[in-house]
């Protein structure tokens, strides 16, 4: 029982981690919380669904297709809602509101186009493998494996490549980065697109593991991502990964041991508790955190 729940929690957590990374990347370079991320997650799930059902693609091509779609949405988001606000002297409210606008737009557009009903995600991978201590389904292996591969690739990208270095420099200090000859505008666009592609991939993984796609899934999943973002510390990629796993495990255990109807409150109950003790999040360095 315990190991079974642990496996379930880690699987769920890996998806949460991917969602939170999307938030944290954008926060890192732009210092804003991208409220449209939930909408992009949801659109990613629908793109994946359409590619599988209508176009008849396999799961992995569809996943990549969804990521490309997410990246395009990310580009539009950056050009239409984020870039016009930069450079002007605006409050920190403005980008928040405009990304909320994008998320309202995406959610209601999806409601109009796809209808309010919940759709299932058809797959051929339904076998259950028995390891004695726990059972794991192929879907769980796929979603966890994909999430882990994405995280490893992202870590390599950020730490080993030239563009990753530029992203980190921009996140550190945008003015200094541009003085040092980094094309910061291009880096910001790249980061938003990367984050949105990850969001779309997370959407497909959620659709796969919950076997349910609906227009409102973006909001609830986006909120959990936000909780993880706070838990791990804003702008901290490693923290987001660890926070995702912690939330996944905590949620699964709270469901398994009694409080199933409180499932959606676990994430936020946890962050309120954590903020009591460590206002800067679990993994952020002291001084960079939430306390002034």
């Amino acid at each position: 029982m315990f190991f079974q729940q642990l496996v379930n929690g880690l699987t769920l957590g890996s998806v949460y981690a991917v969602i939170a990374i999307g938030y944290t990347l954008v926060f890192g370079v732009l210092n804003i919380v991208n409220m449209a991320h939930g909408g992009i997650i949801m659109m990613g799930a629908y793109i994946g669904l359409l590619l599988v059902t209508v176009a008849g693609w396999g799961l992995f091509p569809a996943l990549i297709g969804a990521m490309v779609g997410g990246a395009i949405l990310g580009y539009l988001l950056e050009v239409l809602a984020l870039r016009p606000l930069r450079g002007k002297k605006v409050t920190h409210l403005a980008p928040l509101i405009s990304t909320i606008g994008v998320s309202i737009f995406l959610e209601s557009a999806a409601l109009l186009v796809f209808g309010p009903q919940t759709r299932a995600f058809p797959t051929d991978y339904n076998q259950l493998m028995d390891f004695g201590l726990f059972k794991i389904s192929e879907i769980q292996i796929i979603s966890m494996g994909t999430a882990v591969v994405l995280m490893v690739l992202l870590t390599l990208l950020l730490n080993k490549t030239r563009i990753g270095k530029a992203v980190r420099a921009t996140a550190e200090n945008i003015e200094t980065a541009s003085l040092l000859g980094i094309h910061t505008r291009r880096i910001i666009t790249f980061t938003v697109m990367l984050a949105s592609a990850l969001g779309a991939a997370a959407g497909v993984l959620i659709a796969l593991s919950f076997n349910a796609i609906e227009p409102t899934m973006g909001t609830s999943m986006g909120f959990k991502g936000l909780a993880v973002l706070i838990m791990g510390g804003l702008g901290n990629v490693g923290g987001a990964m660890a926070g995702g796993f912690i939330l996944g495990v905590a949620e699964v255990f709270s469901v398994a041991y009694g409080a199933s109807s409180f499932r959606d409150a676990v994430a936020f109950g946890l962050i309120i508790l954590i903020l009591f003790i460590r206002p800067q999040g679990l993994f952020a360095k002291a001084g960079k955190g939430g306390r002034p």
Partner: protein
Amino acid sequence: MEDILNGYVLQVVIFVCINIILAMTIYMTLCTGLLSLGNAGFMSLGAYTSAILTVQYNLPMPLGILAGGVVAMIVGLIIGLPTTRLRGLYLAIATLGFGEVVRVIALNLDITHGALGFSGIPSMANSLSDLAGNMGITDALSMDSQTMGSLLMCIVLIILTAVIVCFWNALEHSRIGRAFKAIKADEYAASLSGIHVVYYKMMAFLFSAFFAGVAGALYAHATFFISPTDFTWHKVVDALLYTVFGGSNVLWGSVLGASILTIVPESLRALAEYRDIIYGVMLVVLMDFRPDGILTVQTVKNLARRFHRKSAAAEKGGR
């Protein structure tokens, strides 16, 4: 007269008033630079408290509404202790989380009737019209009791809203308001000049919680039915929209924003299907072109100057 006093128009006015109060609660915390998104949670607390007290304990409605505000404020104190010490987005997300937690709890408790919702809440309009009927006003004006009730409720709400707006306006021009302004401009500089930052932030947070509770209670007595889905994240987004659309740096921005954004969707009934899409696009476009909202500090100053000049000219001409 008949056209203006029909039930539908009065209903819209009632909701304009409630939304103005709600938008004010967002503005109150923004006065100190705090973005708090827990207002739906406080609203829900106020609504359920007042509903439970008036239905199950037969408390008079004004006391129920007051109790709703007080309960929201007490919870606000508990939530505020850790969260008002947080900076910017940490606070926004922590309070957003608080709202979600309240919603899930309301969904699971027996006393709130869970997802079924709480029905049979005494209507403010009915009790006001009973009152008027007993005093013989309804007969004297030869109106039917329903319209009379709605009309009286409108008047009560307009007065209440005006009182709250005037109260906050006075507060802004007092010592406390200046402290708020200093904290908003620069927290560190404010603390260096001897302003107790956390104390004033907490004060703004508690006022906001109290009035959100009151708005929730009024909402409950205006609709007679509440369920946890009434107080979701969308409610906060609406309130935030009112404030930011109208102008988040001036008090009148919230009033204007709430009025416009409550009345316009009513007149867009025909486009109901596309309403949210239009809403979303409108927000993005507004932020692109006017990131501080319709009213800014400068426009209010200009308007005030023009108004004074006009009234001065009128006085001169009159003499």
